[in-house]
């Protein structure tokens, strides 16, 4: 027997993923950003809420008038852009990861249930999903946030409420295919209860597309949170979010380009990284999809 005995298909996929250095690099970048976010209080050079109008719109270090204690300059209230960027990562990435995780767990469970049980549960869940899909995302989010008021828990609730549908549709579709497989019939033939079949036989088999979609949606959720915060419906000061920083920067765009540019860049880089990582993940799970 070869040395490669006992490698699960998931392990093999991760090995392929590690060889794909672009996607792996993107994932590494996201992990680094996440670590920075976690260590924000220790890493950030200044208090992100520490305002001082004497430093108002101090430019980045490499331009005239910049200095090393505020490397990316200061915003319209004299707060350190770098420190705010670091603390902003907590909200942006935190909401992205938390919302997608929660929505994926809820959506995938509901999707497997609907796809496996069919009938009435499927009809009810699918109609709810159709209705939710009918709303344009931003309109849905703005409307709901407008009703509930801004705030961290409300933004999470709003995004999860819309986001679970994505995982639901993927999981349901994959389950419809998986439930016809012989191994499901074999499990039934050996007396496996339905709950166990869903959890232990079907779930592991539909996990890879669900994970791939979850990574793509993380990029989407980060953008949604940034958009809501940009519109003032997201997290409220003193909490910092990249979307809110872009909004702050818009007011002073003519005098201090750096205030809006750096959080904008941060959003862009994280979203691109998440998209590329998810593409790599898809190709690792399904090598045939490689172009």
């Amino acid at each position, binding site marked *: *027997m070869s040395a490669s005995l006992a490698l699960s298909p998931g392990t093999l996929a991760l090995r392929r993923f590690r060889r794909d250095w672009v996607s792996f690099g993107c994932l590494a970048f996201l992990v680094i950003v996440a670590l920075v976010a976690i260590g924000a209080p220790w890493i950030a050079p200044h208090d992100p809420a520490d305002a001082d109008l004497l430093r108002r719109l101090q430019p980045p270090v490499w331009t005239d008038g910049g200095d090393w204690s505020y490397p990316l300059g200061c915003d319209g209230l004299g707060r350190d852009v770098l420190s705010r960027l670091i603390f902003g990562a907590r909200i942006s990435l935190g909401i992205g990861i938390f919302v997608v995780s929660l929505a994926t767990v809820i959506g995938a469970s509901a999707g497997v249930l609907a796809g496996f049980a069919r009938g009435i549960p499927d009809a009810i869940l699918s109609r709810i999903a159709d209705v939710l899909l009918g709303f344009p995302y931003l309109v849905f989010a703005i409307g709901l946030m407008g009703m509930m008021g801004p705030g961290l828990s409300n933004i999470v609730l709003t995004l999860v409420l819309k986001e679970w549908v994505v995982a639901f549709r993927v999981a349901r579709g994959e389950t419809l295919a998986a439930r016809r497989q*012989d*191994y499901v019939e074999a499990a*039934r033939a*050996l*007396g*496996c*209860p339905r709950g166990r079949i869903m959890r232990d036989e079907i779930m592991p088999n539909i996990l890879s597309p669900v994970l791939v979609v979850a990574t793509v949606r993380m990029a989407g959720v980060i953008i949604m949170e940034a958009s809501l915060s940009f519109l003032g419906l997201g997290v409220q000061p003193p909490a910092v979010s990249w979307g809110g920083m872009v909004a702050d920067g818009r007011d002073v765009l003519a005098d201090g380009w750096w205030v809006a540019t750096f959080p904008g860049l941060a959003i862009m880089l994280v979203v691109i990284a998440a998209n590329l990582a998810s593409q790599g993940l898809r190709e690792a799970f399904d090598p045939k999809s490689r172009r």
Partner: protein
Amino acid sequence: MTDPVLRIRGLHVGFPTDTGIVRAVDGVDLDVLAGECLGVVGESGSGKTVTFLATLGLVAPPGVVTAETISWKGRDLLKLRAAEMRAVRGREIALTMQDALTALNPVLSIGTQIDETLAAHGAYRSSTDRRARAVELLQLVGIPEPARRLRAYPYELSGGMRQRAMIAVALACGPDLLIADEPTTALDVTVQAQVLELLGDLRARLGMSLVLVTHNLAIVAEHCDRVAVMYAGQVVETGPAVRVVSAPRHPYTAGLVASIPTVDRLDAEIVPIPGRIPDPRAWPTGCRFADRCGYRADDCATPQPMRPATDGGVRCCLADAA
């Protein structure tokens, strides 16, 4: 004759389609005796697999199952509640599917799949006990290095090993009847022989009954005690395996026998049975084999009941003399 452990009478399975009801199983009577090996033979579409899926209550809607009785050790399986039926499946009657590659879950290790079956029946409390049982089972089915193979995934095993692993999963709870649906279809000939030998050996050692569902009459002659030949949703001939193969009474069985290639008749022509199985949406009222039969007579247009004989039965109007 001992009482049968499994007794099927008047089993009908129909699948409604847009163009009519497909009567896949149409009045099957079948007995499985304690400790015996019963071969169920027939070509694709003759209803062999569906018969046993129906026995285990695995025909999914819109399929419709009716029967006079499906009695398992005195209990009528048709009257069991879903949870009771589930307890019978796997623990008392186990089924292995045709293709081991697709019947094993591709993303779970062999050990996990055995553990799964044991846990589903609450067979062992602790996971250590279940693991020990899993090792024991792999040893039983002749998989070398069982402790190591527990962690192997189906794609890492050869076809024969996969078949053995699937048998191990099926035997996990020590069933009294194992239904092996085409256990050798996807295997090459030498491995086929090994798997069949293993099944026969397990039957003797575990004292269980074995149903071998196959389209290969040669396998039946060698490994089974009795045989039931199915054609067009019905059993057309039953009897001791050796007698049925050496002296078939139904023309269809005779046709199957004539189409077995053998070494001692290398120059003999293999005679295929002409024609095809009739349309299962509209079975003929008379003998269902009449259109393909070389001995066709006038009586063949009338319905053919099973004619009992001392050692079985035959559904043919020409076989009365036998």
